[in-house]
């Protein structure tokens, strides 16, 4: 770690101005600092300025989480712990609560922020190791292709094969979320356009214009929504597959669904085929539900060691559907 200056702007606009200041070699935003510290310790980045936005709040911010009528609003600096403990969100958009409850550890959740979670870099062990100059870092090779790829992607990958590590992103996706920003021409980006696949560029995962700063996130309420992660360890581990689901229900019959998978692709991976297959399915009909979710891995291209993800994804989707339909007790029973 080299020395750096720390700037403490009072607004996101000021933060954005600092982020665009060409007199700095590398100015990076510090929110909770969780992923930032990992990068600094591993020697992956070498900023000369940290722009500390941990205590900055957007002009229109009323509370860390605000649910009024038709809009759910979460501030960029809202912590994962605040989301996890929010009784309002548990009613209005439970997928978000389930998603963060499953993430990291209680201590990390106390510091990690919503915006930081969306923008975190991948956990790929080649990316995170200084010794491997992989594609994402400007090198010539993706070491996972012929190397250790048990935790890598089965969809949307190539030439880089990371999975996007955020639980919150697929959950916000099914709630049709929008990410609001300052410092760019457009005031917001829908979350479904926030990320790009590696074939469109490997050096970053998201489409934020340079110097843009997230101010808050809005989404629609999704009362019947759920999230399910399959993790090797039940404490402090990343999912091997995850699924977020939002349903429109008529009794126990699904009228429509949005399904988005996590940990299987370099971006949150929407499963439109499963959403179609779920239409008209009665969640109480186990056989029909299983059949509708069976196509979750259609089109997947597993790598040498991650074929098991193909089998696990339909299970995660089905369990997320049951949770969304208020049938959590049937999961793991």
């Amino acid at each position, binding site marked *: 770690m080299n020395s750096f200056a720390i700037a403490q702007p009072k607004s996101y606009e000021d933060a954005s101005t600092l982020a665009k200041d060409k007199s700095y070699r590398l100015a990076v935003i510090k929110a909770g600092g969780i992923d930032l510290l990992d990068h600094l310790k591993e020697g992956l980045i070498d900023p000369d300025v940290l722009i500390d936005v941990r205590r900055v709040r957007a002009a229109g911010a009323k509370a860390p989480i605000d649910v009024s009528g038709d809009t759910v609003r979460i501030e960029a600096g809202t912590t994962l712990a605040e989301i996890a403990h929010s009784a309002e969100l548990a009613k209005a958009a439970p997928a978000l609560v389930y998603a963060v409850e499953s993430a990291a550890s209680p201590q990390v959740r106390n510091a990690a922020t919503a915006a930081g979670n969306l923008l975190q870099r991948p956990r790929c*062990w080649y990316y995170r190791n200084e*010794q491997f100059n992989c594609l994402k870092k400007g090198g010539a090779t993706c070491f996972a292709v012929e*190397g250790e790829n048990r935790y890598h992607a089965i969809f949307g990958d190539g030439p880089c094969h990371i999975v996007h590590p955020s639980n919150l992103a697929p959950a916000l996706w099914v709630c049709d979320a929008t990410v609001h920003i300052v410092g760019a021409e457009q005031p917001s980006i829908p979350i479904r356009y926030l990320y790009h696949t590696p074939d469109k560029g490997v050096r970053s995962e998201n489409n934020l214009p340079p110097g843009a700063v997230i101010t808050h996130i809005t989404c629609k309420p999704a009362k019947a929504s759920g999230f399910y992660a399959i993790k090797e*360890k*039940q404490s402090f581990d990343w999912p091997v597959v995850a699924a977020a689901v939002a349903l429109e229900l008529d009794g126990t019959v699904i009228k429509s669904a949005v399904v988005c998978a996590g940990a299987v692709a370099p971006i949150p991976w929407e499963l439109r085929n499963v959403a179609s297959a779920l239409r008209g399915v009665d969640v109480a009909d186990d056989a029909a539900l299983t059949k509708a979710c069976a196509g979750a891995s259609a089109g997947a291209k597993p790598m040498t060691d991650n074929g098991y993800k193909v089998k*696990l994804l339909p299970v995660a989707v089905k369990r997320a559907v049951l949770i969304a339909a208020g049938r959590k007790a049937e999961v793991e*029973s």
Partner: protein
Amino acid sequence: MASDTAVSIPTNMPTTNRPMNLGQSMDDNTSRLDGVAKITGAAKYSSDMILPNSLFARFVRCPFGAASLESVDDADAKKIDGVIEIDIQPKECQYDGQPVGHVAANSPMLVDRAIKALNLKWKKLPVKTQITDTVKEEIAKGDVKDADVTFAAVYSTPVQTHSSLETHGGVVDHHGDKATVYASTQGTSSVRDGIGEPLGLKASDFEVICEYVGGGFGSKLGGPGKELTLAAKLSQKFKRPAYVMCNRADEHLDTGNRPSSMTSVQIGLKKDGSVVGGEILTYGGTGVGKGGGGVSIPSGRYNFQNVNKKHTDVSFNGGGPRPFRAPGHPQAAFAEELMLDEAAALIGMDPFTFKRKLVKDDVYREMMDMGAKLIGWSDRKETGTQKSAMRTGYGIGTGGWGSANPGGNAEVVIHQDGSVESRTGTQDIGTGQRTTMGICTADSIGIPLSFVTVQIGRSTLPPGPGSGGSVTSPTTAPTMMAAAAQAKGKLLDVLAKGSGGDANEFSVKDGVVLRKGEKFLAWKDACAKLTPDGVTGSASTGDGGKGNSQGVQFIKVVVDCETGIVHPKHVIAIQSCGRVICRKTAESQIIGGVIQGISYAMFENKILDRNNGAMVNPNLEWYKILGPNDMPHIEPVLWWHGQTGVKSLGEPPNIPTAAALACAVYNAIGAPIRHLPMTPDKVLKALEGAAS
């Protein structure tokens, strides 16, 4: 120490779920004496010793499984202000983490910066990263002509790193003619013996201190180690305290490990469950190490007739092994117990009946009977009969370990002011040594534990054994009891002389000196009759008693057959331990061994990139260790029947666990997972295999 902190935490906690362990130990209720100090941070480990004007150093290491360091350009690194010394020599390296030299600087940050600024030219060489790169499947072929049925299989276990929370290394403070060495070690005395030379001092001119150590599990034995040796040399050379501690990656790469194993078995059985022939071929993945890969199967606990055994160590490009909690045993028990469960299924026998019959020693039979009741073995369904998504399974594992007393020294001082010091140079690596020494002393004398101050972990104290082989308590407990008894004897002699009576009229109970059973003097008043030097009792050995450390574990597991996740639910860990000194720390030791065994069975795996041999997970994010939500309910059962003396407890409880869990999973899903760790991909694959 607890008395130094303002935190008030009750030290007597009632037992709620282990009534059967009550009443057998010298002390049922005392909590670990240093528990509060450790939790609040009052306890100072070697890694906490950041002394004024310290210099810091780290090794520079090969980043690949095999590579030749062709050239070193340290010009940029040397320019960094605050860099003190850079010493790197070109050489050919054979594992990721192999040191090629070191960098010393005024701060850890500067060391990192300097290492990054080095221009090292490496030429990568071809690598082997696992046993099977050299040994293709070797099929065991024994003499099974008398068998009704034969069974053959291959089992394997991964490389497991000790992952001590406090890493390897220490601090040396060299003053020119004297030095203080803060070691993170399992052998205070062995550090004393090995550090004199790099210090350039005689043993009488330095002290080794290791009052607290954050884990070792076998990797911190055998002397100062290269980190502390470097610290000694740097401290002497630059006349400043030298701090050399591994970072987390170093710790995974180059501080030893439990070697991987491959076990190929073929056994022949008769329908009545007897084993009448076979062959077992074992392979130990020792990386670059020479030896240390042994796999202790057959364990000798079961009656195997006419089964040959052959072992081979296999090299590959990885760090060499170091002793790790019952070396050779957990990997062997896994293969042996699962093999027996599979064999039992072949002849249609319940593995409980089968193993109970086949085991040699009656102690195991008694333990199995008790364990079966406690776990609810009668609820067990026959292997392969469950079709639901969530399946429940039960498994049995056994373990055995000797008990040794290599000799150690202890001293007890009773002061004129009534305070009592219990002194021994040995260290507490988490075993509760500090606590047991206090209890032994207090109990032997007849005074409350609160009158006793325990001093451990210094080379200037009476030397004690290294904490390896689970010999610490079996050695120090009887020795300390003997020293305490001697000190007490001297005190009573003084009282006898002073009152014109006979020494054997006097006794001590609950801190009161009795004469002929009647209250004679309060403890403080009795001690006031001593001279200002007090009295000292010392001993260098004690009676080891009889009996070994045997154990049986029963595990109940629920396997989610849709996700492949293994959920251990309940562990009954029956462990013989002779005379238990402190119930709570003894139970804790058993629980700790079980935790580490579950973690080994389910998660731990040192993964080397198959192309360049680098470890891809040298951190606690991807080198997965069990966490709170992965924990089953663990019930330690202290077994003292037929034993006297203090027995080994550090390693034995770690032996049966992975084995019992693997057997339970096999019972649950109807297919064996023969290769640890039991990750979801393997469970799903086994289920697929069973379905077809």
